[in-house]
């Protein structure tokens, strides 16, 4: 019998059998049981000309220690946030991750399980998802939450499409103060189906006399399916969601809020403000930043939309002996049953990140969640007060209350300033020039984020370094 892979049989060569379990003898016996002489017989369904005659052109295999050496070297080319002081936010945050989260979430029984389609063997994951749904409902004060979406951006897009289908209206109104990336993803999704995106221009600058919601009514009408806003918004501002909700409801549209879950330790939940759909980014609930992925989109809505929402959901029920148990339910909305008429095409979601969020929220609990939220608020305000006292620093939205992020206008180009900050081991704020290119109010502005992981010492170092950078003309 010709060998399966020629080199597999070479004595002493073990590298290329990584993760395979069959021995040479096994394979011989298996071919016999199948009744064929050679493995190549199994390739007969593949037309001869399509069978690869040579090995793929891939880099050489590495043994485990060599592989880790290689990976550590690659990782070493990155500046990681554990090795510097970061003031970057804008959707992904370095909130503290208690050790229990990774320890429990990483258990193989969770990590290497499939979607719990067979409930009798998946009660652990199903119960965890049920607890996750409950926790998201608790944070948002909504009636029901699904088992997760890919990220906040796709959650925003799915929520808009859901509103479009419920109301059979084709316009989506979004405030420009929503994260630019989320708006871009929303636009990609809407473009694909020919629906319209209407953007309400940003306001609230020192020179402005009105705010977004005051101009909102000129953008919404009976074609509006939904009004989308973010709390806190992209600039960290705490907005008055009630205004948006009322404006949406006046024309019969749905109100969709994209929220920062950490802020909900303090802020009024959207469910108390009659918001119809709530989405958000759950990365900061115990998940690593991971260069922006995988992320965790959470999605909650009012009960009356129970037949329209996207994604999986777990329900409690009983087994034949009357024991409480959990199973995926409302399955007829999903793609494997309803196919092209499904409420969404989503299948694989972010279950393991939802599990981390569940563990995180239990570990923090009522007191801890309020404390993390409050600490972020306090430290951000301390940083804001200290920074705005500097020469060459100006608040962009001086009138607005904010949570843990704030925009500042600097007297020097942000790129240059950030380069100098990095030399001092500080990852500066986000350069907003690239996001709002045509808005003069946002030229030379930077978005700072301060979470509970920053110490007073960190903030003081930022302030003193920035003072030096801005004060020194030769930078």
């Amino acid at each position, binding site marked *: 019998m010709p060998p399966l892979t020629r080199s597999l049989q070479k004595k002493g060569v073990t590298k290329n059998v990584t993760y395979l379990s069959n021995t040479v003898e096994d394979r011989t016996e298996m071919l016999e049981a199948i009744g064929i002489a050679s493995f190549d017989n199994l390739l007969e369904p593949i037309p001869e000309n399509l069978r690869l005659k040579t090995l793929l052109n891939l880099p050489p295999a590495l043994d485990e220690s060599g592989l880790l050496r290689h990976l550590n070297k690659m990782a070493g080319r990155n500046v990681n946030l554990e090795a510097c002081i970061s003031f970057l936010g804008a959707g992904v945050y370095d909130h503290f991750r208690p050790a229990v989260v990774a320890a429990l979430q990483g258990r193989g029984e969770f990590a290497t399980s499939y979607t719990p389609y067979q409930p009798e063997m998946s009660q652990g994951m199903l119960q965890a998802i049920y607890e996750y749904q409950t926790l998201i409902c608790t944070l948002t004060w909504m009636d029901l939450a699904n088992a997760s979406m890919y990220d906040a951006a796709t959650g925003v897009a799915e929520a808009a499409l859901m509103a479009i289908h419920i109301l059979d209206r084709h316009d989506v109104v979004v405030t420009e103060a929503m994260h630019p990336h989320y708006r871009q993803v929303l636009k990609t999704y809407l473009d694909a189906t020919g629906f319209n995106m209407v953007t309400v221009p940003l306001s609230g600058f020192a020179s402005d006399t009105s705010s977004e919601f005051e101009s909102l009514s000129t953008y919404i009408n009976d074609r509006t399916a939904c009004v989308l806003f973010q709390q806190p918004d992209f600039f960290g501002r705490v907005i008055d969601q009630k205004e948006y909700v009322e404006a949406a409801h006046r024309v019969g549209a749905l109100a969709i809020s994209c929220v920062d879950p950490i802020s909900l330790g303090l802020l009024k939940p959207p469910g108390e403000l009659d918001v119809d759909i709530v989405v958000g980014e759950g990365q900061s609930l115990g998940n690593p930043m991971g260069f922006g992925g995988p992320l965790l989109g959470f999605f909650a809505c009012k009960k009356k939309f129970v*037949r329209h929402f996207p994604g999986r959901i777990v329900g409690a029920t009983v087994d034949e002996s009357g024991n409480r148990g959990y199973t995926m339910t409302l*399955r*007829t909305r999903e793609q494997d*049953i*309803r196919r092209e*008429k499904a409420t969404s095409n989503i299948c694989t979601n972010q279950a393991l990140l939802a599990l981390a969020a569940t563990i995180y929220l239990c570990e923090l609990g009522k007191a801890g969640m309020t404390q993390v939220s409050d600490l972020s608020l306090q430290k951000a305000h301390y940083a804001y007060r200290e920074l705005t006292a500097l020469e060459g620093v100006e608040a962009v939205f001086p009138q607005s209350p904010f949570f843990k992020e704030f925009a500042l206008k600097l007297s020097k180009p942000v790129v240059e300033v950030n380069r100098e900050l990095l030399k001092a081991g500080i990852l500066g704020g986000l350069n907003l020039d690239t996001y709002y290119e045509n808005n003069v109010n946002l030229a030379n502005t930077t978005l700072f984020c301060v979470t509970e992981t920053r110490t007073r010492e960190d903030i003081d170092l930022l302030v003193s370094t920035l003072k030096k950078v801005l004060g020194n003309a030769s930078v």
Partner: protein
Amino acid sequence: MANVPDNLKYSKTHEWVSIEGEIATIGITDHAQEEMGDIVYLSLPDIGRTLAFDEQFGEVESVKAVSELFSPLTGEVIETNTAIGNTTEIVNEDPYGNGWLMKIKLSNPSEMTDLLDAASYTQFAEEGGH
């Protein structure tokens, strides 16, 4: 074998029809409910809606299947069976009685001739007609 009463007419999409004057009462057949399994949700049309022959008028769902409902006749919806409510098992238990779905006022009674009688429907269903 499923129950197929002689006094009713049937569509190839597994709805039954009972006519009284110009009013047709419509439901799904015993065969259809058997195929679906436990019915958990019904979506029925609004009163006053005009349905064309073979137009989709609603949906019936079991835990793991969705089936669209098609109007066997043209007419205006005058009543739907709101008494079913959440007790959708009535459709499984009594598809020709308390499990009826809607009543329509016929606008083209001649379409009746295109429907199957009990014997033809029985044969159609046995052949695995879908």
